[in-house]
């Protein structure tokens, strides 16, 4: 579903991502962990087609983000670490804007917005301007907008930040639903307990390089993910 091949991205003299390769198959929830500045956001932004990269290739569902970005983007959704949405729109206007861009039909859209907004308890606030939303509400709206066109791949940067426990749980369930339906999830997180319980596979990045990846069992063995991560970071 997502194939990253030899991704390299440099900012000035600093290599933010260095020859990174990853493969995320349909049905997988793939966690991406690393300390601050390790290159997680750069990798996610490159995969989402927001940022150009120096070397390598990224394929979304077999489509190159480099050569055919529009087709690739139509098959995925991206949520950044800070949900800066259009403050000048109301929640429902924003959702309709995203749905229009992805060409989601009227009835389908109505049902999805109804269902997702109800699940996140955001229905009553959809008429309000986004400027009046709290961080958590913006995050919920960003999640609804990502799910609205039923993408095959969803990439998220720190998706649980700002969510209340109920919404966090709901998001985890929704992630699993996407994968059960043949889609895939690629997300970064600092909450290792969440990654350990939720992910089928995990990759650890350090100074732009992938230092370990594989199934959760392969990566952590008998130890906890936190212990493995801290050991690798100390090396």
């Amino acid at each position, binding site marked *: 579903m997502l194939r990253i091949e030899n991704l390299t991205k440099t900012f000035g003299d600093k290599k933010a991502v260095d020859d990174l390769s990853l493969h995320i198959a349909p049905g997988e929830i793939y966690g991406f962990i690393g300390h601050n500045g390790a290159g997680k956001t750069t990798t996610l932004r490159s995969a989402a087609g927001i940022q150009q990269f120096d070397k390598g290739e990224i394929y979304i569902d077999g489509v190159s983000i480099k050569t055919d970005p529009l087709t690739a*983007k139509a098959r995925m959704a991206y949520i950044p670490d*800070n949900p800066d949405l259009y403050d000048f729109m109301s929640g429902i206007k924003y959702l*309709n*804007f995203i*749905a*229009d861009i992805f060409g989601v039909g009227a009835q389908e859209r*109505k049902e999805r917005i109804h269902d997702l907004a109800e699940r996140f308890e955001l229905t009553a606030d959809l008429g309000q301007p986004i400027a*009046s939303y709290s961080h958590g509400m913006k995050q919920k709206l960003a999640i609804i907008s990502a799910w609205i066109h039923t993408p095959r791949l969803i990439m998220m940067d720190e998706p649980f930040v700002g969510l209340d426990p109920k919404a966090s749980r709901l998001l985890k369930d929704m992630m699993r639903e996407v994968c059960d339906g043949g889609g895939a999830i690629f997300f970064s997180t600092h909450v290792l307990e969440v990654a350990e319980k939720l992910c089928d596979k995990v990759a650890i990045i350090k100074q732009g390089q992938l230092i370990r990846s594989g199934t959760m069992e392969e990566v952590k063995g008998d130890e906890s993910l936190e212990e493995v991560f801290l050991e690798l970071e100390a090396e």
Partner: protein
Amino acid sequence: MLKLLLKKQMAEIFRSYLYNVKKNKARSKGGVIGMIVLFAVLMIGVLGGMFTFLSLSMCEPLYEGGLGWLYFLIMGSIAIILGTFGSVFSTFSGLYLAKDNDLLLSMPVPVRAIITSRLLGVYLLGLMYSGVVILPAVIVYWIKGAHGVPQIVGGLLLILLISVFVLILSCALGYVVARISVKLKNKSYITTILALAFIGLYYFFYFKAQVLLQNLLNNMAVYGEKIKGSAGLLYRFGRIGEGDWTAMLIYTAVIGALGAATWIVLSRSFIKIATATGDTAKVKYREKTARLQSADQALFRKELNRFTASANYMLNCGLSTLMLILGGAAVLWKGGELVPVLENILGDAEGSVAVLLCVGVCMIASMNDMVVPSISLEGKQIWVVQSLPVSGWQVLKAKLKVQLGLTLIPALFCIACVIIKLKPPVLTLILMVLFVTLYVIMMAVVDLWIGLLSPNLNWTNELYPIKQSMSVLLALLGSFALVIILGGLYLLVGVRLGGDLYMGLACVLMAVISVLILLWLRGRGAKRFANL
């Protein structure tokens, strides 16, 4: 603490002078000096030159008639009006809507220090606008009138007092807007309407002032005595410039007290207003089936929403829309008198009236430049369009369409009104429509090109991209310059060619420029946007 905040405020105000966003690095010393010189030349050359000319025409007769105080009263009043007009719209957002309010309020920073640093931005804007009037007025007086120590001290003090008074007025009006806006639902529209009423009043008095000024110069002795006798405070105000120590003392004390009172009121109410979320009724969401739109329509709607959501944006970048409609209506109303007058002035030159009226319509249309800041206004939300399955060109096209829609339609209405009154031959009629259409299209693509060259996505207050960026200044002055060139060229060489041929050639030139820039925007421009 205050020093730190002032430094931050100054860095924000002069960011574009110190930092090259395009290259993502600080400008060299030469670059900084170049930017400052360019800005100074534009401000002093364009606005300052105009008021120097006005000062030169008024100073000598008034000074020789013993009415130097009246000269300073008139120039001081213009400076106050222009200064307040120039800074009042940014006071509210500059003081209360800055994006770092929460951050600063969460830190152990005294509110007084935040207010003072914010006021500095408003003060500098007021000083700049009032300074272009009063500084030349004072210098002209020193040259044509007197230049002893009292006059030099008085002149300098007058500049300072006017700038502080402008700050007080701007803050008072900004405070009223802030108090009202906390309660309002459709803030942007109501603020825009109020501001337009203010602008209308300003122009009403401005045009009246021209007549009054002439009348005043003709009867200066009579009016001088009247003002002196019945409005002592105004007389004293003018006397500051003449170096009257008593007047200086009185006004320094009064304006100082007013300034202190403003500062106390603002300090006490700042937190409440800056953190107010409003107690307006919650908009009730009613589930309904949405009307489907294509991606292009959705992007256009998004840009239009962005434009209409901000009174600052509408007022600073969209005034032509209203002016063109009013202009068209005015032509229908008074055009019967205007056309024969123009025909008399321009004499036998065939088609001259048509060309110059077209140039006039283009001049009014030049004030619309909403596409220039639209790139910078994407700000931190730019990831949304960059992550969606739309091309950079589609996004740029939506921005262009907003400017074209809001300018071309009223411009065509305006030129249609001109055509109705002028009743030109068919070929001239077609060329007039083409001329205006191509000018509006060319300016839209040029504006978008300028906006794309040096966008600033890291602003903390939307006023910076909308009003204070170099791109906006360049676009505005560039479009004015172009209209002047189009009109000037006609008067210099076009008259000999004839109106139709001149308009035809201008249309070809504008079409070629538009196509070339459009090609750049579709290719390199779209790529540049995608990589911002």
